[in-house]
């Protein structure tokens, strides 16, 4: 077969550019650490990577949502825990005050303690998380409870200014969890029932030396205490739910990250050995091409 000079040069040019391109591509995999550097490197893998990336970014966000939720639940749990203790103190006080040996003066003196507790519980009911009231439904910028007083400064009622829709956060594709509370469901409306009414009535009974009223307050406080326990355990259950969800998210994140890495990250050892083999091929091509190009009959004439 005739071999023209043009064929020789063309072949050398083509082969050298091919081997050089292979080497550069192999090098890109090593330097970027990624198997997929362009959309066309592995389009099918890329679609999976994109969907995994979306899921991962979403999991991060859900994680942030959960930590917001935890801040609300923690604030609520702490506040209601304190309320529970205050109610226990009041129960002890009621039992003491119901004692027939006590006189009107002593009972009157205790009334001030009850009012102090009322104020404390109202302030706990106005607890905020991240600057938002948590026992006010979704009217989170509205102070839910304010003590109303009569002309002589005695508390008459503690009306609720929030609404009945608890604040909720998103913890899954279709799952929302209430992390705030409808304050009325927790503390009552302040005039027909609930801990505020109990305390106001208790105080009035103490001031009017009404033993029957004090006994009634003991029963009411018991009910309020049980009610509060159920609310605390409500919040606790939600906290557990968030914790479980957080765990699941972390596990998923781990496995998704691994899948994503398998898809898009380069196996560095394999990539480096690939570069080495491409380099050897390139060097061999250069060496032999240089020799072939040099040869000519002219040198021997």
């Amino acid at each position, binding site marked *: 077969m*005739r071999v023209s000079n043009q064929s020789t040069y*063309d*072949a050398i040019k083509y082969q050298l550019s091919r081997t050089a391109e292979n080497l550069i591509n192999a090098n890109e995999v090593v330097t970027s650490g990624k198997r997929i550097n362009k959309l*066309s490197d592995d389009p099918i893998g890329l679609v999976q990577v994109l*969907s995994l990336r979306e899921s991962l970014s979403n999991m991060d966000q859900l994680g942030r949502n959960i930590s*917001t939720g935890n801040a609300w639940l923690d604030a609520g749990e702490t506040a209601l825990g304190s309320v529970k203790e205050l109610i226990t103190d009041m129960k002890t006080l009621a039992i003491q005050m119901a004692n027939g040996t006590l006189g009107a003066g002593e009972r009157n003196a205790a009334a001030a303690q009850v009012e102090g507790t009322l104020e404390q519980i109202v302030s706990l009911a106005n607890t905020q998380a991240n600057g938002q009231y948590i026992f006010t439904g979704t009217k*989170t*910028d*509205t102070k839910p409870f304010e003590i109303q007083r009569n002309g002589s400064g005695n508390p008459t009622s503690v009306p609720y200014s929030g609404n009945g*829709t608890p604040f909720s956060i998103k913890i899954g594709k279709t799952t929302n969890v209430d992390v705030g509370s409808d304050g009325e469901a927790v503390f009552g409306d302040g005039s027909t029932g609930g801990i505020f009414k109990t305390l106001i009535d208790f105080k009035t009974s103490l001031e009017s030396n009404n033993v029957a009223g004090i006994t009634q307050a003991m029963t009411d406080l018991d009910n309020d205490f049980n009610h509060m326990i159920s609310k605390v355990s409500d919040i606790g259950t939600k906290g557990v739910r968030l914790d479980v969800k957080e765990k699941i998210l972390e596990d998923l994140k781990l496995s998704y990250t691994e899948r994503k890495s398998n898809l898009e990250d380069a196996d560095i050892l394999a990539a480096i050995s690939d570069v080495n083999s491409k380099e050897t091929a390139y060097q061999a091509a250069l060496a032999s091409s240089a020799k072939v190009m040099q040869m000519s009959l002219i040198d021997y004439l």
Partner: protein
Amino acid sequence: MSGISLILNTAKDALMTQQLAMDVISHNVANVNTPDYSRQTPTIQANAPASYAGLILGRGVSVTDVQRNADTFIENSLQQRQSDLSATSEKEVYMGVLEGIFNENSGRSLSSQMADFWDAWNDLSNNPSGEAERSALYERGSLLGQTFSDLSGNLAQVGKELNLSIDNGVEQINEMTAKIADLNNQIANMSAIGNANDLIDQRQHLVNQLSEYLDVNYYVNDDTTMTVTTGRGYVLVSRDDNYSLSLDGNAVKWESSASSTTDITDTIKGGKLGGWLDMRDTIIPEYNDKLNQLAGSLIWEVNAIHAQGVGLERMTDLTGTSWVGSGNNGVVLANTNLDFGNSIDTGGTGSFTIWLNDGAGNNTSSVINVDGDADSLDDIVARINLVSPGNLTANDTNGKLSITAANGFSFAFSDDTSGALAALGINTFFSGSDATGMKMNSNLESNKRLIAAGRLDATGQIASGDNTNALDLAGLQYRDTPALGDTLGNYLANLEGSIGIKSQSITRTKEYNEVIVNNLKDARNNVSAVSIDEEMTQLIKFQHAYAAAAKLISTADEMYQTLLEVR
């Protein structure tokens, strides 16, 4: 002629012949690097014998012809494959550009912008009254809109660049066909008196170059001129005439005469021009359409939810972002130019509720019925004006719905089952209907408190911690949208995947064509290209023959002297 003079004459012919042969060789050597040059070989023939002294004696040698070594079949195949290769190479280049535009490894990729956008809605749902969350969401939204319009702008820019290339390509083609016509003329003239080898090579070279620009067919006529047509048979060169192409807007036109042109855009399939046209007219529009569909769905879905809600305050003065088109204020909404006029409910049961606040804490609601097939903008304006005349005024402002509350009054919306609010651009998040025009609703720019994270309660009150709408919007990312039949994120991933697949398959086709073209080139070069080694061998061969012929002359000379010395 006889005897010694015969020898001298034969020797002279031999000298001439070898010299001519070496001439041809030197021409070959000189053209070793000339593209598409076909090596030439002298045809050396013994002269016709003559009878002398009763014998038939040979009468030396002469060069009768100089031949061009070419295989027309290979050249033809090569030229056609070259056309395919040029088309796929150009497509490969531009697919690379598209891949760069949709680059997923950068932090500003569309998919990461979308993820950020959903995250911002989540963040707002965690703190619906937060000013910082609102600003962040606004920025995310406008960056997302910007990214969409950048992408579509970049695609349009590639289209423009392609048109420049096409324009340039058409000029090149005209230049080449004119040269081929000119060469046809020269070759015909020269063939009449001898061989036109080098001109034929030049013409072949031009045809090869031409087929890099578009798919052509050619054949050589009996009078040695060449006829060149496009792949579909539009004549480009016939004898010494050439027919020009021109670019008229987006159309490539073939000028059969000064006054008559034919649009041949769709018939060009090969060469760079074929590749550019395929990119410009098929591939880029396909991705642009998909991008617009994605943006359109995103805008519509977000707006449809956003229009249900309310921000931290009510509105006092509002103009929709979408217009019905000039003179269309009396036309039923579905038939107007509204961005999403077709998405308005036409069942006759759609409605939205408008809540009027009198500034003294009283909220009154009015239900406005909307039927996209029966109601016009004027009808909606009239209905809103009946709500509370003097306190709430609706207007047709240049084809857009505008609503103004009297001093102290303010209004808000809820329960839009008709889709009319989102279609009219009232209480929406985005404006625009496709990637190019995607922007934030300008009403939100001045007052981010109007971003509707929550909804009015049953009595028309705003609760600043209500995040119902924000939660719904954050959940949009998981939902299949009706227009796309897929989630927005999956649709985008598939769009980018399809670009990758297209690019991959074009690259593979290119590599395949490259191998074939290389093989054909090799085959052509094996026949036609110059080998220096071969020419040197020939040179030595002819040099020796030349020396031998010279020796003949000196021998004849000696013979004459021998004769002359006889006394």
